[in-house]
């Protein structure tokens, strides 16, 4: 990880004063993966966290493939297409970060499926594509909501929560584009 990446994050963290990073998180953030399994986090804990992040990585890879399908469908108007490509870019960034974290935790990142068997025949309009993307984004929000509390490393949990926030924004924007209430509830589940 470059100094450009780490310095602002460390500043952000130190600004709170009371946050203590685990040995694993410090090693990961510093790019010293050989130290990541030493200290308070056991190898089993790291393995569990890697498995949880791998589940999230698989979901991100699916989202990337879904947006690719939507982008190539020819059904999206230009501004919507640009938005879809932007959201796909976010998912690519999530996937890249998750894959690196899994590796640094000693795991093997999952690879994208060759075929997701998406129901292409049901995508006949821009609205269909938006609804399809919205369903996956909602599912992703739920998946991260289910991952955050069980990640042993609290800094990894915070990173996952950061991704959750981004996916919730995608979901809201897609709902708005579909003419639905963008934020239907006070809580997500």
């Amino acid at each position, binding site marked *: 990880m470059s100094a450009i990446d780490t310095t602002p994050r460390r500043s952000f963290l130190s600004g709170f004063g009371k946050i203590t990073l685990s040995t694993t998180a410090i090693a990961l953030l510093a790019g010293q993966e050989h130290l990541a399994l030493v200290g308070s986090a056991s190898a089993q804990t790291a393995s*569990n966290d890697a*498995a*949880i*992040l*791998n*589940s*999230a990585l*698989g*979901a991100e890879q*699916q*989202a990337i493939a879904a947006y690719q399908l939507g982008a190539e469908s020819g059904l999206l108007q230009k501004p919507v297409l640009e938005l879809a490509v932007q959201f796909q870019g976010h998912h690519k960034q999530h996937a890249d970060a998750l894959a690196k974290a899994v590796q640094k935790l000693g795991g093997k990142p*999952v690879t994208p*499926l060759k075929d*997701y*068997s998406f129901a292409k025949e049901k995508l006949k309009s821009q609205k269909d594509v938006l609804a399809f993307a919205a*369903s*996956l984004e*909602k*599912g*992703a929000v*739920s*998946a991260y*909501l*289910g*991952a955050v*509390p*069980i990640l042993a490393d609290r800094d990894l949990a915070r990173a996952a929560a950061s991704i959750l926030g981004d996916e919730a924004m995608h979901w809201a924007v897609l709902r708005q584009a579909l003419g639905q209430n963008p934020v239907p509830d006070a809580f997500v*589940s």
Partner: protein
Amino acid sequence: MALAATLLAGLPVWAAEGDPGRGEEIYQRCVACHTLAHNRVGPRHCGLFGRKAGTVPNYQYSPAMKKYGVTWNDETLDRFLENPLKTVPGTKMGYAGVKDPQERADLIAYLKRATANPEICK
């Protein structure tokens, strides 16, 4: 009334009657990883009831799930869905679980209905 309440309180949690309509809404939490008809991040759900855990063809299970050995039914699903990682340590399902017993009953009721639909599960 008091006797009825006492008797009801003694029922196993998984005996709660599920609402498949509500369960369909809850299933939307699962779609980042699962579909009924196809393997994705998680295995397909068609054929779930009565199937031995870890046996969907062409899905790469964790060693832990392959060894789990249970057959999926209302009770085994309820236990797994409540806390997947505690029930099957090492499972690939990195998810905290569905903590509300009624939500689990609803979800199971939906899965039972949906996986019996020949239009979905051919």
